[in-house]
């Protein structure tokens, strides 16, 4: 079978293929899904939910390649735990077991590795998961970037529970759990060529307890998704596409910290597209919206939870932002990562 991506356009992988936008979507849809057709990977959501003879499981995987390895508010270790338990929680699962795969670069300082595995331990402990299996590879100096981590998680889904974009209905309310873009700005501040100082911490956090509080409170949760690469706007686009629904949000309802705003204004970035690592959106029945936000506000990463929008009756998958002027714009998927603008 020939490669289904028109390689005359991009015969090589670009960084943008990992940027969470259209190029990445194309890669997943055209290359991975096509290749794996019939043997799986039909869902690109946070976790796969598996029917085993033994019961219903959720499974998810992520690799972590953050730079710097240690950043204000976290490090690659805690990030890799949070990211994966969050993906399990987004399927309504209780995270149980994690695997960890280390790809270490020759020359990594042992002390740094130690700090990072300790941070993993603490994060796993807090999230109530066990790291049950692992693997270590070392690559030549210059063939890695200190540490690349993969964590894969398995969790248990309560029987009958269905938390999935396909459960989204017209009228559902959308709640965001907190201010967006902190993680992206916290790490961007260390990127060569941009060097700025952002007195802010990454939002990296486990959302597990908050999610199960929502479920336990009897909130009609249709769909949950954590905000990662590509930020809030990208996340909403993915759900709009999966659910086949138009989503509208009130842009000024989305909390953004002043430091994040400042960095975004300076670089010409849109905070709605900047990465988070400890934020989520919940799609809930309209009558539960206020209560869902209320429940979230009981948890540290949900302190600033707000209702930001709703699902419309329109079945053209699209995300629209309304602003304070009463006007709208399309919050489209980007091609790749946002690049700083001069214009």
């Amino acid at each position, binding site marked *: 079978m020939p490669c289904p991506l028109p390689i005359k356009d991009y015969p090589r992988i670009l960084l943008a293929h990992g940027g969470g936008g259209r190029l990445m979507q194309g890669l997943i849809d055209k290359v991975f899904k096509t290749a794996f057709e019939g043997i799986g990977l039909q869902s690109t959501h946070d976790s796969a939910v598996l029917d085993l003879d033994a019961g219903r499981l959720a499974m998810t995987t992520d690799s972590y390649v953050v730079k710097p390895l240690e950043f204000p508010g976290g490090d690659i270790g805690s990030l890799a735990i949070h990211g994966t338990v969050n993906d399990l929680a987004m399927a309504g699962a209780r995270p149980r077991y994690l695997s960890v795969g280390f790809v270490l670069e020759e020359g990594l300082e042992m002390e740094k590795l130690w700090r990072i595995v300790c941070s993993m331990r603490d994060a796993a402990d807090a999230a109530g998961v066990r790291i049950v299996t692992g693997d270590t590879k070392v690559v030549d100096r210059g063939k890695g970037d200190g540490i690349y981590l993969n964590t894969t998680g398995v969790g248990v889904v309560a029987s009958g529970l269905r938390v999935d974009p396909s459960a989204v209905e017209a009228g559902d309310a959308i709640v965001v759990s907190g201010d967006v873009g902190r993680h992206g700005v916290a790490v961007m501040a260390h990127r060569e060529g941009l060097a700025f100082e952002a*007195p802010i911490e990454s939002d990296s956090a486990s959302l597990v307890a908050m999610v199960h509080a929502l479920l336990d409170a009897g909130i009609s949760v249709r769909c949950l998704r954590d905000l990662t690469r590509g930020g809030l706007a990208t996340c909403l686009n993915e759900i709009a596409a999966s659910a086949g629904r138009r989503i509208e949000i009130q842009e000024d309802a989305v909390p953004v910290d*002043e430091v994040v705003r*400042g960095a975004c204004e300076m670089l010409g970035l849109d905070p709605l597209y900047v990465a988070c690592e400890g934020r989520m959106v919940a799609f809930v029945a309209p009558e539960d919206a206020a209560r869902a936000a209320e429940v979230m506000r009981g948890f540290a990463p949900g302190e600033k939870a707000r209702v930001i929008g709703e699902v419309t009756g329109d079945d053209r998958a699209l995300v629209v932002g309304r602003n304070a002027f009463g006007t709208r714009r399309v919050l489209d998927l980007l091609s790749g990562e946002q690049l700083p603008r001069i214009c």
Partner: protein
Amino acid sequence: MCLGIPGKIVSIEAEAPLRMGRVSFGGTLREVCLAYVPEAQVDDYVIVHVGFAISTVDEDEAQRVFAYLDEIGDLDELDPDRAGGSE
């Protein structure tokens, strides 16, 4: 072209050979060249483009749009026809 953002000078780091300072954008800090705003001082707001301050924000002039709004506010009372035909 020309993304330019107001920021507040929090410190002046060097006068010579190149005037440099640190500017805060809502708390985000960046080194900025101040060579083109020789008059600007700490606590002044400057418009920054690609790492260069290209002007000092004039506090008084910054209010002008609100004065203009006040005028227009008066227009609210007028009827549409007169608004179009005023001279």
